[in-house]
């Protein structure tokens, strides 16, 4: 990692890791995500990608290394403090607030940037009323960007799958993040939807001026939109570089396809 890269990085992760008993789930994970960067994180199942996200968002506390966001150390903060610092995420297995309406799901996320006193709530103070209205306006604006304003009063649970995925992104954006972590946003989508999703991820980055880190299994999608890709396998970073570099890296090929025996001998690492 060059010094120029590390000083300009918005999210600077250096050597974080966690073990669960003897299992080294993620080890020495580093990434330097610049402002407006769109990076990818790939790897076979169980490689530790989601664990890396959980480390970044404070669901797990890292046992090594450090994380800085815009120059501020965040690795010891609790999840809600990290959200306040400016990292928002979506979940691999959708975690919406099912009983709440679509609008309330987004309003809940707007919550983070407001002030909430018990007295103001009970008295319905002018500031409280104004803030609730502001949250509604902001939530509706976000919902309309994603074409969800029609279903604003529907329970989140009742939305079709694709809309639920969109609502998760919408909700994450409502926290006004600097960095957005997307955990397999294309899971369960058909090829047409995936193309649309690729476009909208880029559009989100440009419109909101965010840095995005993306976990995805769909290679086509990752290779198409990500500027740099980090590959994890068994908790280790085995490769990091531009899509073309990654595609041609023998370790990556080995991780995904196994060792290939050719006329010249064994390609890749140890058997």
């Amino acid at each position, binding site marked *: 990692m060059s010094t120029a890269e590390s000083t300009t990085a918005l999210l600077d992760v250096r050597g974080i890791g966690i073990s669960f008993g003897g299992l080294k789930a993620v080890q020495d994970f580093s990434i330097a995500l610049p402002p407006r960067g769109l990076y990818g994180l790939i790897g076979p199942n169980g490689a530790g990608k989601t664990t890396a996200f959980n480390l970044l968002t404070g669901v797990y506390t890292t046992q090594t290394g450090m994380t800085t966001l815009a120059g501020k150390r965040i690795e010891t903060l609790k999840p809600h403090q990290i959200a306040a610092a400016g990292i928002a995420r979506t979940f691999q297995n959708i975690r919406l607030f099912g009983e709440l309406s679509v609008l309330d799901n987004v309003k809940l996320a707007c919550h983070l940037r407001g002030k909430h006193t018990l007295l103001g709530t*009970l008295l319905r103070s002018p500031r409280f009323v104004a803030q609730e209205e502001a949250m509604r306006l902001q939530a509706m604006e976000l919902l309309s960007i994603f074409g969800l304003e029609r279903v604003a009063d529907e329970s989140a649970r009742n939305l079709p799958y694709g809309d639920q995925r969109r609502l998760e992104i919408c909700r994450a954006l409502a926290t006004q993040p600097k960095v957005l972590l997307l955990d397999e946003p294309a899971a369960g989508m058909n090829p047409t939807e995936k193309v649309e999703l690729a476009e909208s991820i880029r559009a989100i980055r440009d419109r909101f001026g965010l840095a995005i880190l993306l976990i995805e299994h769909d290679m086509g999608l990752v290779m198409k939109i990500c500027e740099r890709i980090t590959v994890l396998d068994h908790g280790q970073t085995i490769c990091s570089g531009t899509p073309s570099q990654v595609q041609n890296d023998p370790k990556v090929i080995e991780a995904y396809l196994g060792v290939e025996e050719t006329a010249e001998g064994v390609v890749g690492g140890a058997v």
Partner: protein
Amino acid sequence: MKTLAQHQQDVPGKVATRWDVMLLPWVACIVVALVVHFASPVLVNEYWQNVLRRVGVFVIAAVSLNIVNGYAGQFSMGHAGFMAVGAYVAGATTYYGSLLLHGSVNDPNFYYQGIGLMLGGIGLGCVVAAIAGYLVGLPSLRLRGDYLAIVTLGFGEIIRVMLELTKGQLDNAAAVKDAGAKLLIHLNGPSGFFGIPSYANLFWIFLFVSVTCLIAYRIKYSSTGRALLSIREDEIAARSMGVDLTKYKVRAFVLAAALGGVAGGLYSHIGANPSPTDAGFQRSFDVILLVVLGGLGSISGSVLAAIVLILLPEVLREAQQYRLIIFALLLIIMMIVRPKGLFGVKEIWELDWFTGWFSGKRRERKAGAK
């Protein structure tokens, strides 16, 4: 894309300071209380008025417990403990206060001062219960659900045992003056505190009922309420969206304990002598039953469940001894027919009645048929 702060700058032009929004509901609470107070003597006899006062107390208990068990989804099993704290604090304030200031209890000449003592006692009981809630909640709400249930269950039992160990009640002003701070241990042990004047008439009961419902309503439909509901729905997602779990859980717990204390304070002023068993598990379970049957998170559900389940034993007097069997059956049937309680998380006015009542079920059936 605007930030929340920018949106907020646009708003004041649209939302002027709404004094009507702020104040009218509080006025409405007083009106409700007055209406109940003056209408019920015309409509029902004294016996049923007493039943109505009991209903009111349990409405407050259920609605307050709903804030923590329903909104926040944290299973507290010690609500009776907080109610008992409120009941004893308020009851002792009125009883010993009257002895101290007037020399006798329940003297008609001392009526208005007595009411003042009752209100002061209820306020004090509310504060003490809230402090107890904070002390119990802060360590235990960091734990997972089952532990909270055990800790709160233990809290109720501790209160019960402590009350059983208290000494006999004092009955004259001189003894009260002598006792000073030691009054706290003169709560009459297992036989329960008696002789508290029943100052809580229907006006006071229903004033507190409507204020409690208003508080519960305003919490539910606010950012705080959404935060609590999000915790109940999915803790991991909630904290990733910036909800401080411990802060909001403790808030809900303290608020529920405080209002539970109010319910207790009123309970000791309706002629029901508070006794240690009122702090025990059985009473906590009674209140949980109301909340679960009404629907976890539904204010109107809790209110309706409290009304029905307190009135039911009165109506079915002959079946009194089978009360618990009937309740258990009711619970089983409810869990089969409407597992989320009568109204679920919704309020009665949010259901589109005839089409909506079983629509969830119907939709499932249709989906199954396909």
